[in-house]
C-alpha cells in the first residue's frame, strides 16, 4: 500500500509547487501577494516558495491581472513554465483578452511555432458568503475556448497530481480551486506524481445511474452516495477532473452500462458545461438511455450573499439524491 499523508488542498498545492520548482528551474510562480514577504498568498498555497527559490522565480505582483497574464505568456514564449495565480476566478474577466485571445491561441495562430505552457491557478466557489463577484464557476467559458485546458480537482491528492500535470503540460491550463473542496483533508500518497489530464476517475463503480461531476460537486455527490446506497441505488460516480478536453470514453462507457446519467456541477446550469456532456451522451447513446440525462447546476442568478440564499444557490446533497432517485426509477 502507498504511504499517504493527510493534508488539505492548499498543502497539496504547495507541495506540488515545491516539487515542480525543484524539478524544473524553468518553473516560475507569481501573482498577487504570493511571496513570503506578503505571507505566501491569501490561502497559504505558495508559502515558502520565495524563500526557497528566490525572488526572481517567485514574485508578488501589483494588482494588474493583464500584466500578470502577459508576463506569463511572454516568459512561456521564451521557454519558461509560469504558474500564475489569478486570485479569484472572477478576476479572469479583467485579463480575459490575455487568456482567450493570446494564451489559448498563440500556438495555433503561429502555426505551431510558439507554445504557451502556462498554468493559471484560480480560486472560486460559493460557500463563503463572498457574494456576487467572488464565487462564479466559469469553467464553461474556458471549456468553450479552443486552446486551453480546464482542470477542476476535487480532493487534495488530485490537486497535487493534476497541478503537477498542468505545469508539465505543453499547453495553457487553468486549474480551479473551489471553495467546497478546500477544507476537507485527504490522504495524499507520499509519492503522488502527475495525474494525466483528460482522464476521468471512476470514484465508485455502480450499475443503475452514472453521476458525472467535478470539483465541489464531487464532494457533494460523495455525500449523496451512502444515502443512495441505502435506498438500493447503485451509483457509478465519475469525477471528470479535466473539464476540457473531457474524457468522453469513460463517461460514455459508464452511461452505456447504467443507461442513466445525472450531470452535477456548481456553475450556473443554463448554457453551462453540463449541457455539453448531456448533449453528447444523448447523441452517442441515443436509444440506449433508460431516462433523460439530468443536469443539476446553479440557478440562473448571480451568487447571492445571504446564507439562506447561498445555500439554495448551490446544488444540495438532497437535490442530488432526489435527481438520482428519480432517474433510477425511470426506464
Amino acid at each position: 500500500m502507498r504511504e499517504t499523508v493527510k493534508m488539505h488542498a492548499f498543502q497539496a498545492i504547495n507541495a506540488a509547487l515545491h516539487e515542480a520548482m525543484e524539478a524544473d528551474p524553468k518553473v516560475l510562480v507569481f501573482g498577487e501577494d504570493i511571496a513570503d514577504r506578503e505571507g505566501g498568498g491569501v490561502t497559504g498555497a505558495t508559502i515558502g516558495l520565495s524563500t526557497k527559490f528566490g525572488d526572481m522565480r517567485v514574485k508578488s505582483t501589483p494588482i494588474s491581472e493583464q500584466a500578470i497574464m502577459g508576463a506569463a505568456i511572454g516568459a512561456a514564449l521564451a521557454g519558461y513554465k509560469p504558474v500564475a495565480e489569478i486570485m479569484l476566478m472572477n478576476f479572469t474577466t479583467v485579463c480575459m483578452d490575455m487568456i482567450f485571445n493570446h494564451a489559448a491561441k498563440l500556438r495555433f495562430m503561429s502555426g505551431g511555432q510558439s507554445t504557451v505552457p502556462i498554468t493559471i491557478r484560480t480560486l472560486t466557489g460559493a460557500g463563503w458568503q463572498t457574494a456576487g463577484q467572488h464565487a462564479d464557476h466559469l469553467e464553461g467559458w474556458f471549456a468553450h475556448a479552443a486552446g486551453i485546458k480546464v482542470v477542476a480537482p476535487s480532493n487534495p491528492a488530485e490537486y497535487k497530481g493534476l497541478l503537477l500535470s498542468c505545469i508539465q503540460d505543453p499547453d495553457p491550463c487553468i486549474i480551479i480551486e473551489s471553495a467546497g473542496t478546500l477544507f476537507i483533508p485527504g490522504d495524499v500518497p507520499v509519492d503522488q506524481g502527475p495525474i494525466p489530464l483528460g482522464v476521468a476517475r471512476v470514484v465508485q463503480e455502480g450499475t443503475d445511474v452514472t453521476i458525472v461531476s467535478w470539483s465541489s460537486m464531487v464532494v457533494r455527490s460523495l455525500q449523496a452516495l451512502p444515502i443512495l446506497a441505502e435506498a438500493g441505488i447503485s451509483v457509478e460516480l465519475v469525477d471528470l477532473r479535466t473539464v476540457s478536453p473531457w474524457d468522453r470514453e469513460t463517461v460514455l462507457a459508464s452511461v452505456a452500462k447504467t443507461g442513466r446519467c445525472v450531470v452535477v456541477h456548481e456553475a450556473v446550469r443554463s448554457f453551462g458545461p453540463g449541457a455539453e456532456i448531456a448533449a453528447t451522451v444523448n447523441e452517442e447513446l441515443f436509444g440506449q438511455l433508460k431516462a433523460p440525462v439530468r443536469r443539476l447546476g446553479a440557478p440562473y442568478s448571480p451568487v447571492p450573499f445571504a446564507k439562506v440564499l447561498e445555500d439554495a444557490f448551490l446544488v444540495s446533497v438532497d437535490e442530488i439524491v432526489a435527481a438520482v432517485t428519480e432517474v433510477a426509477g425511470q426506464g
Partner: protein
Amino acid sequence: MAEHSNSPVPSTETLVDIYRRMIRIERNDDTIRTAIRRGKLVMPYYSARGQEVIPSAISTLLTNDDTICTIYRGIHDMVAKGMPLRPLWAEIAGRVDGTCKGKGGPMHLTHPETGVMVTTGIVGSSMPIANGLAWAAQLDGSKRVSIAYFGDGASNIGAFHESLNLASLWKLPVVFVCQNNGFAEHTRYENGTSVDFISKRAIGYGMPGYTVDGNDPWAMYAAAYEAITRARDGEGPTLLECKTFRFLGHVLGDDDKYMTKEEKAAAIADDPLPKFRARLLAEGHATDEQLTKLGTDIQAEVDDAMAFGLASEYPSVDELRRDVFEKEIAA
C-alpha cells in the same frame, strides 16, 4: 449640506459635521466588529478604521444628489455619505430589509437615495462607472458631482488609466479619490506601485493631481473643496491621493505579518479621531460634553440599527429568481 459651501476653510459647523460623520463611521465599525466576534454577523469584513477623515470631509461638501462609487472597503464612505444604518445593518446581516434585500451583502451595498450607487468587489471598477454617472450629470445639465473611491493598489490596474483619460477628455465632473493606506492586501505600496506619489499619474491625463494628508480634516476639506468645486463648475476631474492607514489590516482576522509592529503602532498612536477631537476642543469648536453626547447618540443609533438588522427576516429563496431581470425568472 443644503447650500454649497464657498470656502476651502471649514467652518465650525462643518468641522463638527466632519467629526460627527467620523464618529458614526467609527462606532459603526466597532459595533460591526463586535457583532462578528460574537457570531451575530458572518461576513468577510474589510474595516476602514483609521480612514475616517477622507469620506467625512468630502461628504460635507456633497448632497444626496451627488453620487459615490466605492469598494469592498467602503462602508465608511457610505456612512459618511449618509446611508441610513438600519438597512445597512439588515444588508450585512443578509436580511430582507437590507438595502439590497440581503442579496448584495457588505461588498455590494448600494443605496441610490443617498447617492451610494455602486459598491464593487473588483479592484479599480468603481472608476469607470463613476465616469458614467458624471457623464449623466453633464447631460442633465446639473451640477451633480460623482466621486470614485478606490485604494492605492487600484491605481495599478487598467481601469484606473482608462477612467482618468476619459474623464479628462470629456471634462467629467468626477473626483477620483485614492485612499492610499500604504498597502494592497499584504503588498506594500512600493512593491506594487512604480511611482512615489500616485498624484503624479494625473500629469499623464492633463489633470490636476494632489497628494493630501488624508488624516487631516482641514487639509482634506480644502482639497476636496477645490476638486468638487472644479467638478461642479464644469472644469473637469481631479485626482486626490489621500494618505492614510488602515488599522485592522486587509480583512478582519488578518495577521499583519507583512508590516512592522512599529509602523502599525505609530499609525495607531496617530489615530485621527482622538487627534481631531482634541483639536476641536482646543480651538473651541465644540465642548467635551457636546462631543461626548454626539458619540453617545450615535452609538444609540448604531445599536438601534443593529437590533433592526438582526431582527429582520431572512429572504425567501424565491429571491434568487427576482432582480436577475426586471421580470421574475420562471421557477
